[in-house]
């Protein structure tokens, strides 16, 4: 259905219509920039019967400066990313400025069965991968039938 503004001069209605049309023309939303809504870094979370796996897409960080904390079932990833843009006094023109810069903090609440003492965190190719083991008691066990 076409969406038509009652007031052709209404700029916001026009923008709204444009946005709807854009969304309709793409079935998947491929833009990583759209993730600015969800915040930096973008995160993927998955689970296996033995562990919970968290991937934070946080490129260009100093691994020593990433703060990962696990407290009361809540995982917090925080840090700071410096802007690579040139200093103001340089005679440089900035044409595109899309990359995140500044302090960030993201929080994930974890399932109840994770073991806070069995956490590993690795930073590779700009992705922070945190793996948290589930407690042994909650893992599926095969029960022998007598």
């Amino acid at each position, binding site marked *: 259905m076409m969406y038509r503004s009652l007031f052709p001069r209404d700029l916001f209605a026009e923008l709204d219509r444009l946005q709807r049309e854009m969304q309709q023309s793409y079935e*998947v939303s*491929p*833009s*990583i*920039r759209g*993730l600015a809504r*969800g915040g930096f*870094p*973008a*995160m*993927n*979370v*998955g*689970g*296996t*019967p*033995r*562990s919970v*796996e968290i*991937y934070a*897409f*946080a*490129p*260009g*960080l100093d691994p020593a400066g990433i703060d990962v904390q696990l407290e009361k079932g809540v995982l917090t990833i925080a840090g700071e990313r410096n802007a*690579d*843009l*040139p200093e103001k006094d*340089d*005679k*440089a*023109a*900035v*044409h*595109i*400025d*899309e*990359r*995140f810069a500044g302090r960030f903090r993201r929080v994930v609440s974890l399932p109840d069965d994770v073991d806070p003492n069995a956490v590993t965190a*690795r*930073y*590779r*190719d*700009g*992705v922070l*991968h945190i793996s948290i083991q589930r407690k042994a008691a909650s893992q599926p066990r095969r029960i022998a039938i007598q």
Partner: protein
Amino acid sequence: MSDNVEKKPEAARAEATLMPPVNVFEDAGGITLFADLPGVPKDKLHLHVEADTLTIEGDIVLDMPADMEATHSEVSLPRYRRVFTLSKELDPEKVSAEFSHGVLKLRIPKAEHAQPKRIEVRVE
């Protein structure tokens, strides 16, 4: 040659890709581009300069357990791609690239003849 150029945009549209965010700035000597490509190992990053088109492509490789089920995905496609058109005064032969911790830094210098020159005004 012209066939190639015409086919490329269609191929790109067929496959959905992530658009990496970039910063681009220009100084007297050339253009510097930074692109965020987290999850791409060095050997999966592909840069092409063809005529006046710069293409940045990379495949994400994550170390995932085989039986993992995703419960939340913000990065839902395995590949990045972004294409830029270079302008005439840039020298595609001299592009240099660094890639570390998922950040690509490209430096595209201006061709010798396009470097800014101060023109002296003589009063006679």
